[in-house]
């Protein structure tokens, strides 16, 4: 079959048909994948909370609270199972070496730190990024500790009981500071069983 000539009607018609067909297909596929995409996004959003909190079956985001600590306002998300408070996740941050370090910290109802997830950081690869669990044991120091009787500060500064990441005192300090802030917020937030 011969090639279509490039006259106006042909051009217009071709482009119209192509765009029509593909947009129709796209619209259709969009409808199909709409649900899974939303699910994935929701999962992503709640994943951090799921990691740091013990089992829960409420909607922690629905019950989110905003608590002012110093100049900041932190978000705290209570997790409950069958209305019983199982833990509280606190979103916190402090400036590190390369920028803000954002953490989500899961506390048990008694204030013990359960898990910490790093939401975002800009620390140097190989140095400050050891705050990630996959990179070093630094974050493990905090698990199971209750800031009431565990001083959140770098040992080398004489400010607490945390062993700093070597050559990354600043990052370590910021990490402690963020955890401390979260703990303060937790205390202030006064989340109780329902």
């Amino acid at each position, binding site marked *: 079959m011969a090639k279509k000539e490039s006259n106006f009607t042909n051009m217009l018609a071709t482009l119209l048909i192509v*765009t029509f067909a*593909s*947009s129709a297909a*796209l619209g259709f596929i*969009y409808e199909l994948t709409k649900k899974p995409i939303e699910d994935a996004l929701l999962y992503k959003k709640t994943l951090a909370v799921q990691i740091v909190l013990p089992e829960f079956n409420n909607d922690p985001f629905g019950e989110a609270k905003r608590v002012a600590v110093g100049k900041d306002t932190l978000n705290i998300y209570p997790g409950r199972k069958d209305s019983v408070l199982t833990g509280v996740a606190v979103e916190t941050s402090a400036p590190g070496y*390369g*920028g803000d370090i954002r953490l989500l910290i899961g506390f048990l109802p008694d204030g013990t730190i359960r898990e910490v997830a790093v939401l975002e950081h*800009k620390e140097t690869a190989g140095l400050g990024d050891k705050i990630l669990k996959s990179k070093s044991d630094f974050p493990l120091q905090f698990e199971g500790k209750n800031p009431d009787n565990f001083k959140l500060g770098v040992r080398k500064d004489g400010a607490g009981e945390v062993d700093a990441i070597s050559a990354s005192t600043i990052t370590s300090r910021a990490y402690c500071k963020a955890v401390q802030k979260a703990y303060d917020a937790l205390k202030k937030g006064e989340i109780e069983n329902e």
Partner: protein
Amino acid sequence: MDYILIIISAVFVNNIVMTQFLGICPFIGVSNKVDTSMGMAGAVMFVMVIATMVTYLLQQYILEWLGIPFMQTVVFILVIAALVQLVEIILKKVSPAMYQALGIFLPLITTNCTILGVAILAVQKEYNLMESVVYAFSNAAGFGLALITFAGIREQLDLVNIPKSMKGVPIAFIIAGLLAMAFMGFAGIVK
């Protein structure tokens, strides 16, 4: 102040070629001579600013309004392709001199990811119209800076004997790597 930060960030800190990996094909392909790379940089700047402006408007006033932001890719690329062709046709007639200088690069630009990339990034970063334009402009400037510097180095290397197996593209990548490494020093200047 914000504009200045956008410019510094796009030109030095987050250079589109050296840290964001966009527009590598022309970066490698059209950087043999300083003069041609200047032409290319000019052409990219021209198209990028217009394209970002147009796609910004489309995104804000059509796609968002209709609730179909997922059509971004298709719509943007169609517009960019049409735009480039349009620019080419018009330039050829209106300013043959400029067409001589920039024209040969125009077809290459359609398939240059910087244009689409910057258009999409400007939307992602939720810039307003003016910021988007500045963003596009400074990314194009960053592209130009990288391209011209790079061409300068390659032109100089043309006059010496480099090992045969490294000639051409491999050495270009090594230079790009070392240049990118040097530019890493700017990290953190704009947070």
